[in-house]
């Protein structure tokens, strides 16, 4: 059994940022990551909204932070058990690691919605239907193409897939998809200026700083079209393209259109790790997201002393929000550890 | 204090020497209006105003109905200006709001396209050898009354007060669309807060009613009215306005546009005849006056000399409220002293209270 000051579960942006800030305050931090690689979902990101910052810059910055002398990083270390032992927390992993520490930070993040549940949208059935994550990967390698390797003439983005959907049990808004669709459509137009981009939405929620400006920019400079209506059916055409159907609710008329790629803006759900550890520790809230004791005044603390939360294990958050939350969590833990030593 | 944006807009009215262009609708339907206006300006205000026998249409109704081409319209307007120039005047005062809108529009187009002005000069010359100057000042007669409203008030025998209650009369003011909505910056208060009638009403003791459809069109709509099939749409607009003002119980409607006066007055008959609906008190409708008529009766003119008997909605209850004396027997007596006969009674709209 190894001792540490803090065990941080999850090597994504939240975990690394918190670990680094704790390390700077001279705490011995153990950072466990279930995958071979760190960065979590940041791994697949191409650019970040709203300023199109290259995600690789964020990755190298995060990587640099993990090199801090007070941080010990363990990869392939999926956490199997978190339990309380007297005043300490014990964290065991799948590869046999066993830590004991006065504080644990849960930064186990989110997973994306499995679009196969929405069969009528044809994901997993028609090759032209892809998820936003897959589209981001296409952008990253600079190859936006259909399954046949052709350049798409028209791309449609559909918002709210797996979010705001009672049928799949997710009533909440994932918050990032609207702006992400704007970003993706702009990136698509940057790489393929000839392509026509259409965003299908129920509501457009541009709540963050510069979001509205980006939305405007997508219309003004990139000719992205916005249609208020939810696509409810997808069918193949004779030439292996996709016909999407929705109602153009503003003109009160049904609308159909042929596209080459349909990008489903899949929502955010609690990751399996978040759900499992939350269950073990007893901090599970709604939709398996973890629950802090006070949203307004103690959003990093849980009802258990020494067990802290950071990032998207709590709710859908953007990257800057996640990082800020991680720093706030580090401060809370620092104060907690100091109170113990007094 | 709230900032009153309308004060930024100002109409420019010449001080004297007006060339008066009579209105087709006003002189036909509200026969006393123009006569008393000239009277007021000449005799009470002591101004020089020309009343030319040779005047003709401005073709505005044809133009706004989309049947008279632009060049024709401009040439007709140019002839009016030629008459003014021949008479030695520079200040054009069209009695009709549509004329007012049209001449402003024509002059504005000439300002932007001087070659058009030259072309029109050529047309007019070719047609009847006339030449013209573009007026230095175009003002509507209501602007003149507004300008001298205080002087006139001093001479008035009556005020806009209900003599029975002592309270101010509630007045709906209606501005013609072509007065303020084409060139809002050239009229007092612009298109949203036209002050011209408001100024008169407030100065003369009345209270302006601010109701939801205040800025809505009277319903004339030119081709909407001209084409029988569209006429229901025209009447529907007046109905919308009347329904909107009805809960405020206005004592009368004051308009500066002859068309508006005409439609808001006559459509009350049409609505009553086709749907059985009447507005105002006791089923008698809401009286509609032109600003000249109002000024005249306040100054003490005999209402029957002003032409109030030619209105569809009867004005006696209003006159009673204002305490204005009139002889009911004189109502349908002509200038010669002979009885002209009484008009037919409408089915629903009442012409006498409590009958």
């Amino acid at each position: 059994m190894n001792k540490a000051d803090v065990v941080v579960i999850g090597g994504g942006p939240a975990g690394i940022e918190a670990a680094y800030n704790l390390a700077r305050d001279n705490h011995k931090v153990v950072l466990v990551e279930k995958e071979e690689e760190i960065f979590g979902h940041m791994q697949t990101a191409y650019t970040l909204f709203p300023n199109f910052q290259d995600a690789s810059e964020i990755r190298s910055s995060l990587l640099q932070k993990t090199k801090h002398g007070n941080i010990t990083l363990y990869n392939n270390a999926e956490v199997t058990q978190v339990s309380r032992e007297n005043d300490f927390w014990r964290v065991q992993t799948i590869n046999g690691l066993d830590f004991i520490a006065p504080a644990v930070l849960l930064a186990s993040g989110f997973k994306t919605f499995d679009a196969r549940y929405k069969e009528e949208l044809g994901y997993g059935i028609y090759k032209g239907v892809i998820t936003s994550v897959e589209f981001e990967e296409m952008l990253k390698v600079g190859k936006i193409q259909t399954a046949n390797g052709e350049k798409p003439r028209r791309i449609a983005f559909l918002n709210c897939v797996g979010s705001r959907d009672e049928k799949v049990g997710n009533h909440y808004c994932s918050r990032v998809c609207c702006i992400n669709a704007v970003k993706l459509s702009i990136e698509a137009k940057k790489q393929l200026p000839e392509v026509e981009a259409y965003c299908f939405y129920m509501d457009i929620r541009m709540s963050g700083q510069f979001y509205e400006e980006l939305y405007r920019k997508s219309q003004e400079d990139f000719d992205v079209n916005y249609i208020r209506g939810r696509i409810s059916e997808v069918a193949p055409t004779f030439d292996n393209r996709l016909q999407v159907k929705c109602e153009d609710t503003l003109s009160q008329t049904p609308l159909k259109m042929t596209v080459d790629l349909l990008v489903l803006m899949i929502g955010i759900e609690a990751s399996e790790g978040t759900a499992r550890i939350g269950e073990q520790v007893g901090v599970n809230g709604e939709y398996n997201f973890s629950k802090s004791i006070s949203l307004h005044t103690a959003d990093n603390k849980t009802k258990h002393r020494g067990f802290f939360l950071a990032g998207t294990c709590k709710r859908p958050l953007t990257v800057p929000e996640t990082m800020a939350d991680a720093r706030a969590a580090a401060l809370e833990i620092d104060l907690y550890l100091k109170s113990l030593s007094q | 204090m709230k900032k009153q944006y309308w004060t930024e807009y100002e109409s420019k009215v010449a001080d004297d020497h007006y060339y008066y262009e009579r209105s087709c609708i006003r002189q036909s339907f509200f026969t006393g209006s123009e006569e008393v206006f000239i009277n007021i300006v000449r005799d009470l205000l002591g101004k020089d105003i020309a009343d030319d026998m040779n005047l003709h249409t401005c073709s505005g109704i044809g133009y706004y109905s989309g049947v008279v081409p632009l060049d024709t319209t401009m040439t007709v307007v140019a002839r009016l200006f030629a008459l003014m120039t021949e008479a030695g005047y520079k200040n054009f005062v069209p009695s009709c709001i549509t004329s007012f809108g049209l001449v402003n529009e024509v002059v504005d187009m000439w300002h932007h396209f001087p070659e058009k002005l030259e072309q029109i000069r050529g047309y007019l010359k070719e047609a009847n050898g006339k030449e013209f100057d573009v007026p230095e000042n175009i003002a509507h007669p209501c602007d003149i009354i507004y300008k001298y409203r205080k002087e006139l008030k001093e001479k008035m025998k009556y005020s806009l007060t209900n003599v029975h209650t002592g309270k101010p009369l509630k007045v709906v003011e209606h501005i013609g669309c072509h007065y303020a909505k084409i060139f809002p910056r050239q009229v007092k208060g612009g298109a949203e807060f036209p002050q011209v009638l408001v100024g008169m009403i407030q100065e003369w003791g009345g209270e302006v009613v601010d109701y939801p459809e205040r800025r809505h069109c009277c319903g004339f709509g030119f081709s909407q009215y001209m084409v029988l099939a569209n006429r229901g749409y025209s009447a529907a607009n007046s109905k919308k306005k009347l329904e909107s003002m009805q809960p405020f119980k206005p004592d009368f409607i004051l308009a500066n546009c002859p068309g508006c006066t005409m439609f808001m007055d006559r459509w009350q008959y049409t609505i009553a005849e086709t749907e059985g609906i009447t507005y105002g008190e006791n089923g008698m409708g809401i009286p509609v006056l032109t600003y000249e008529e109002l000024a005249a009766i306040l100054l003490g003119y005999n209402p029957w000399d002003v032409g109030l008997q030619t209105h569809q909605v009867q004005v006696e209850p209003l006159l009673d409220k204002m305490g204005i004396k009139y002889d009911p027997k004189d109502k349908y007596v002509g200038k010669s002293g002979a009885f002209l006969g009484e008009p037919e009674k409408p089915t629903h709209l009442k012409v006498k209270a409590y009958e």
Partner: protein
Amino acid sequence: MKDLGFSISQSRTIDLDKSDLSAYRRVVEKVPSAKLCLMCGACTATCTARNHTDFNFRKVHLLFRRGQFEGLAEELDKCMLCGKCRLVCNRGVNTRAIIYNMRIILENLNYKSIK
């Protein structure tokens, strides 16, 4: 009433002060999920009757909600009650039940009663 060769056009404004909103309240009593509709139009897009007509459930539902019943009974007669729309509704609105209830209210269709 006199025939003047034209009739005064009816206003196309939805005047909520004068609209009958009670009918919709009756629908909501039977189908509480009706309140959840956010008018995304997925139902209209997937509609089976849509292939044959201009039937637009979302629009009909909204007009009914606003108390504008003119012509709605004829519109509702286009629906085949197949229930496909219910399956695509994100908000879990029982669209089919809304149509069913609107139809009953508008056409005043009654059950047969036993002798």
